[in-house]
């Protein structure tokens, strides 16, 4: 046996089962599991040890699946859950810019950068919100290639959301070394359904360790029957299984029924998640608000609603909720970061600065925070601080973050009018991340100011390939083509720019001018 010697050594006079339980409560799962394996070898029918080992294995692989919401390629490409093929304006997450104008009141795309799904960047990176290409979402992003790409250019998304779970599972099984602990396929689930405590442990084990929602669903179905459809927990688990299997309408039914039996925050959160997946943001918001009224002070519900508002591009409403969150939980990183970025993009860098400083005081120390602090300092005219912050950001940045920091250095160089430095900074950013669309676009602008039109065009083209969703490279390239007299290309490019940002006045003007040229006899 290759188990570590310390774990094997049970002190004399100590009940090994008690010790295993103690390991479990102290979250020393590896020791707990090896101890239990030994005990089970001696007596395979010891239910207490079996229970402890199941719990330990489950907790080892436990992830908070209320937060994680990343759609895999399969979900994106084969998404057939959308209720309406052409949703009404403002009712779909896939078309965030269609809401009533001025209702959101947030900054426009000209001021605040956009993600590939056409909504403003939030201040907090979380899975699922950064990108949602969708098959019918937007022209230009609907290709299969786009679906494979992740939120940021250059990243990729998992094949299925189940895929990530499965990979985690196999890795942990190998490290276990003793083969399969419970052979789920051979279990008589009906027998276990009669024993509620064991069954719950088993259910979690199947869901989180085995990642076999189909089997878990069977168990849940038996268990709910055996307790006369009265137990909220089993119904919620059933909903979770359905959700993982992609049967969203069934999941919705189970969660609703579970909520009727017992009003639990987690269930509400999962129900809202179902609606978000069904692309019904307004229903999800309703779930969040109603649950928040029943559970005042529950931060996760408020955050959930705020995220949906963000995704619908109604930033101002989201900001209000983030402020509420901070009243209940003054050190909520997500709320602080989102408020900070909101203030930054609404021309209040001084206030944003205070929020970022709060993050720093709370111990969030990474390149991104320092980078943002530096930007805030610069725009608040505190030049000496700005450079220090960027130096710190360089110290902390890894390869992906470094490109962004250099990009921002370039922005500041433009701000102080040092175009040579700006050019070099953007070059460095591109050398670190060859698909950094923003840096490429700015390089193009600088080249075209120098008169190197061919170089400018190639930079724009690279930026277009890297980020189809950004309107800047399209518009700038259109302008370049127009200046060179190549009206046909210019027209095509400006159409792309308008597809990415329909309200861009300069693009509209160029478009009108080109149409006039074409229509003139």
């Amino acid at each position, binding site marked *: 046996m290759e188990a570590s010697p310390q774990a094997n050594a049970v002190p004399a006079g100590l009940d090994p089962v008690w010790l295993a339980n103690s390991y479990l409560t102290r979250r020393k799962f590896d020791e707990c599991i090896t101890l239990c394996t030994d005990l089970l070898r001696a007596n395979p029918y010891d239910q207490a040890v079996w229970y402890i080992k199941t719990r330990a294995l489950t907790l080892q692989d436990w992830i908070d699946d209320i937060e994680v919401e990343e759609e895999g390629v399969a979900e994106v490409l084969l998404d057939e859950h959308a209720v309406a093929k052409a949703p009404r304006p403002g009712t779909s997450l896939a078309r965030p810019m269609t809401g009533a104008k001025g209702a959101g009141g947030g900054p426009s795309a000209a001021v605040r950068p956009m993600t590939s799904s056409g909504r403003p960047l939030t201040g907090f990176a979380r899975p699922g919100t950064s990108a949602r290409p969708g098959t019918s979402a937007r022209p230009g992003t609907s290709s299969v290639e786009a679906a494979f790409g992740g939120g940021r250019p250059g990243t990729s998304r998992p094949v299925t959301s189940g895929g990530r779970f499965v990979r985690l599972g196999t890795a942990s099984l190998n490290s276990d070394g003793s083969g399969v602990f419970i052979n789920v396929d051979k279990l008589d689930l009906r027998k276990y359904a009669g024993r509620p405590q064991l069954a719950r442990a088993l259910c979690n084990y199947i869901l989180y360790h085995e990642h076999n929602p189909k089997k878990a669903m069977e168990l849940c179905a038996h268990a709910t029957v055996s307790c006369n459809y009265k137990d909220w927990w089993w119904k919620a688990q059933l909903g979770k299984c359905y959700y993982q299997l992609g049967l969203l309408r069934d999941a919705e039914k189970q969660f609703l029924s579970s909520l009727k039996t017992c009003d639990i925050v987690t269930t509400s959160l999962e129900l809202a998640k179902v609606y978000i997946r069904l692309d019904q943001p307004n229903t999800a918001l309703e779930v969040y608000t109603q649950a928040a009224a029943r559970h005042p002070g529950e931060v996760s519900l408020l955050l959930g609603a705020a995220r949906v508002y963000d995704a619908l591009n109604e930033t101002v409403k989201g900001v209000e909720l983030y402020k509420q969150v901070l009243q209940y939980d003054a050190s909520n990183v997500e709320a602080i970061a989102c408020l900070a970025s909101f203030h930054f993009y609404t*021309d209040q860098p001084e206030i944003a600065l205070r929020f970022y400083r709060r993050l720093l005081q709370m111990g969030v120390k990474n390149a991104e925070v320092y980078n943002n602090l530096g930007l805030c300092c610069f725009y608040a005219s505190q030049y000496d601080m700005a450079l220090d912050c960027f130096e710190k950001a360089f110290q902390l940045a890894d390869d992906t973050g470094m490109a962004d920091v250099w990009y921002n250095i370039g922005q500041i160089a*433009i701000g102080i*009018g040092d175009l040579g430095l700006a050019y070099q900074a953007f070059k460095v950013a591109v050398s670190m991340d060859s698909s950094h669309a923003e840096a490429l676009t700015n390089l193009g602008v600088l080249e075209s*100011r120098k008169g190197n039109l061919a170089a400018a065009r190639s930079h724009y083209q690279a930026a277009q390939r890297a980020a189809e969703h950004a309107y800047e490279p399209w518009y700038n390239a259109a302008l370049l083509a127009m200046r060179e007299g190549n009206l046909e290309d210019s027209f095509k490019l400006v159409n792309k720019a308008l597809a990415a940002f329909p309200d861009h006045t300069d693009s509209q003007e160029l478009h009108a001018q080109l149409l006039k040229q*074409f229509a003139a*006899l």
Partner: protein
Amino acid sequence: MQRCYQLFVRQDFEECLTLIEDLSGTISVPSDFLLCIKGLIYRQQGEVQQSLQLFQQAAALNPNSHDATKQVARTLHLLARYQEAIETYEEVEAALPADWEVLHHKGLCYASLGDHSKATDVWLRAISIQPRDATQVELIKSYMQLGNTREALQTGVDALEVSPENGELLSLIGMLYMQKGEVYRAFDLLGSALALCPRDTRTILAAGSIMQDHSDYDVALMKYRVAAVHAPNSPQLWNNIGMCLLGQQKYVAAISCLKKALYLGPFEWMISHNLGIVHLCTQQFASAFHYFSASINLNPVHAHSYMYMGMALAKLDDFENACHAYDKAVQLGGDMLIHLNYAVTLYTHDEHDAARQHALQVEELFKTHPESPQCSESRILQHRERLAVLLAPDSL
């Protein structure tokens, strides 16, 4: 055929194309008319290259139809093949010597090639055939490119007689007058241009800036409010709004407007320059210095930037560098204001002799340019007198 034309005029392009397909199936010889219509539709949809082929086919089918040839030339022009376009137009011109359209477009080709003098010649001929607004506007722009403001104005005035209600023309001539410094006439013209098309952002900006120059800030802000709806992300607009607010002594609002402008247009040196001035007004000299240095980096030949930078540096107790900045400003074209400010700075740092020299320069400029608007500015006069009094006892 008639139906096809109707559909084209109604811009019902899809249906028109299907109709053309149907029609070309029924007739044995392809019709140049249908080809032309199809070409026009393709061109309006942005498929210029395809439309060129169609027009060329049509022209080959009916060599006597100048319409098709004209469209070939026009399409060549759109494809930036200017020389070929000019040759084609010349062919048509041989057949139709008195066609305004041909001459107008030929001029456009010359202008696109950068040959403005040839373009103006051609346009003058076009106007003698038919005085159309489009040609007049192009002619004025061409004169402006050549730096011939007088001719441009003359053309403008002539053109206005023909069509007094062309908003584009009015605002163009208004801006010409503004460049010449005839503010009142410019304002008149811009006003009537605004009456005709009240939402043209450029005209609003021009008219607003004149109001601003006359300290009529409230009215200017009203005008800008209209423009802000149509061009919310125009750096020039926000710059002007910021300067309006500065005129009303609302410094914080001015700074935030100017910062917004700078965010939207980081390459506009004027905005940095203005931000520097606002910071000078609010006694934040270090920030002011940074903005002036940014402005100078972007536009190194603006004398006043150096002067203001000198003022900021002097306030920051860096007298030596302040003098360097002033010297640079004087070197780039020292006007009265620069000499006056230099003298004041020198005097406050007890450099009386040097101060006197610049004060003398100011007096000199007063004598040589008594008509310049700076001579009547009350604050300049005030400072000049005070300086004269302060420096006088030393000279005795």
